[in-house]
């Protein structure tokens, strides 16, 4: 499903040469896998996730999604891929505070033009962290994506809620969804079917 060949990403810096976040990374992920990406801060995990989720462009190398070279996608095409192929789960949930929980879940549907009139009055700020993340997951699943990308989904949760969220992800994976999760927590990473360790912009072990 995902194939990265010699993937590089360099962030431009003033005066300096630029910061290389990814230094020629090779990776392939099959459909239905549950992959945990771990590594120290600044090793390029989030950069990798952003590229896999069509939020960011690689500076070099190739990223093939379902056999198509993502490097050739235009901005609207990338938006369309984010809308229909990828679901994002964020560490800080990234829910819109002024919208109700249901409206947050409905948001991706709106961009696909399948909005519904229902209302769940509860504001995300009134929910617990675990509940918020469940809303976040529901939102990520709203358009039935093929790939679920989770960036530290348990980072802001206590261990009990964290475990519950990972179990939820495992359930979804068991249902056939491909999941790529970035995490610091080695314990949680072990619950994935495969662990990829990153260091200094390359894969250390897989």
């Amino acid at each position: 499903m995902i194939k990265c060949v010699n993937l590089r990403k360099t962030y431009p810096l003033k005066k300096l040469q630029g910061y290389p976040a990814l230094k020629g990374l090779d990776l392939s992920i099959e459909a239905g896998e549950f992959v945990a990406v771990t590594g120290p801060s600044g090793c390029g995990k989030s950069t990798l996730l952003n590229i896999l989720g069509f939020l960011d462009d690689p500076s070099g190398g190739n990223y093939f999604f379902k056999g198509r070279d993502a490097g050739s996608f235009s901005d609207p095409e990338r938006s369309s891929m984010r809308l229909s192929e990828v679901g994002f789960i964020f560490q800080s949930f990234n829910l819109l505070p002024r919208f109700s929980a249901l409206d947050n879940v409905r948001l991706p549907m709106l961009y696909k033009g399948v909005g519904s009139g229902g209302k769940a009055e509860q504001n995300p700020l009134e929910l617990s962290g675990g509940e918020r993340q469940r809303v976040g997951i529901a939102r990520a699943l709203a358009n039935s994506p093929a790939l679920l990308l989770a960036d530290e989904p348990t980072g802001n949760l206590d261990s009990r809620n964290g475990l519950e969220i990972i179990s939820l992800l495992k359930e979804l994976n068991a249902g056939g969804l491909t999941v790529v999760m970035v995490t610091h927590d080695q314990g949680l990473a072990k619950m994935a079917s495969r662990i990829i360790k990153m260091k200094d912009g390359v894969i250390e072990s897989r």
Partner: protein
Amino acid sequence: MRISESLRTGAFEIFHHKVRSFLTFFSIAIGVVSIMYSLTMIYSMNFRTKKALDILGHGRIKIGQRGYSQTSTSMEKKEVNDRITLEDAQALRANFPELPLVSPIMVNGVTFSHGYFRHWVSVAGITTEWKKRGWIYKVKGRFINQYDLDNYDRVCLLIQDGGWFKKPQWMKYYDWMDGFQKYIKHHDLLNKTVQVGDNLYTVVGILESPPLEKNPKTFLDLEGWESKVLIPITTFHRLMGGGANVEINIDTGKASTVEFYKSGLNKALQSRHSGQLRLEVKGFGDIIKTKMADKRRDMYTVLIIGAIAILAGGIGIMNVTLATIYSRIKEIGIRRAIGATRGDIMAQFLIEAMLLGFFGGLAGILMSMTGIQYLASKGDTDMMMVQWWMPLVAVLAAVFTGFLAALYPAYQASRLDPIEALRYE
């Protein structure tokens, strides 16, 4: 994203920032009030001009003398001594036989007396062509004929005012009558002898003016129409024409030939006076426009104030949109991450700004309709001509201002990098 959802989000934002929204509404509303006011003035002006020209005919030209008071140099004063004469009018008639109307007229103010009744009236010397002007329709007795003209006969016609068929609602009309009108209404002067100026005349006809709906006077006050006593122009010239100027009314038949005849008539007249005549050859359309100049200046002033107010409102909207975008960068990032295109983001902010314009416009319509009702109740006839489409145009202008003002901020919002926006705190 569906428009209904964008509208909902926009209304939500406006409601949650009440003071900010109110201030923006206010400046837009002032602009809309000015637009409504000037639209009403423009409409009223055009309506009156068109109505007057429709009744008069669009091909009318007036040839007049520029008077002594309008001169400044000694050369010009000398030129004033050369006057348009009756012979000039006859020559024009002979040179341009195809013209439907060549009607010379001389006007003077004298005393009209009958028995003990005396009244200062304006008397016009006319030819038989005068009746072709088209807005006198009822003659009791007879009109002035060629025999009267050839023999300098002391005969006269009196003009009686017509009333309304049905008084239009938008027009406030003061139904007063002057002493002369009252007298001729209550005394049948047909075939009686009256004194006009220093001489006695026989009243050979009473002309009843058309109802005011069909009288250009109703729509526009053009000089020279107010003469209520008509006598043969030859008689006028001999008995009271000493200082009066000859004015020639021409009808070319249609609007397209006015310019052609203006220069032709001017040349023909000047050639009879070695180019020494201080002439004014004007189409009635131009005369009406000159008469309307004051009103037009007022209108433009209001329009400029309106434009400035709406511009200020537009800047307000731009400011609000920029502030909204800064406070919602993270939201933009989230929306982009879950699949919103740049177009979606841009449309969202544009729709919000257009909503601001729309609500401001509605407030402006409420304010201006109240003001217009008030002015109309005080007898401002222009204000009574407010039309159903004017609020529509004004609101559209406000919405369009919102759209224009938000274009740049919305474009900026759509260009935000999704990752940067997501990290924004």
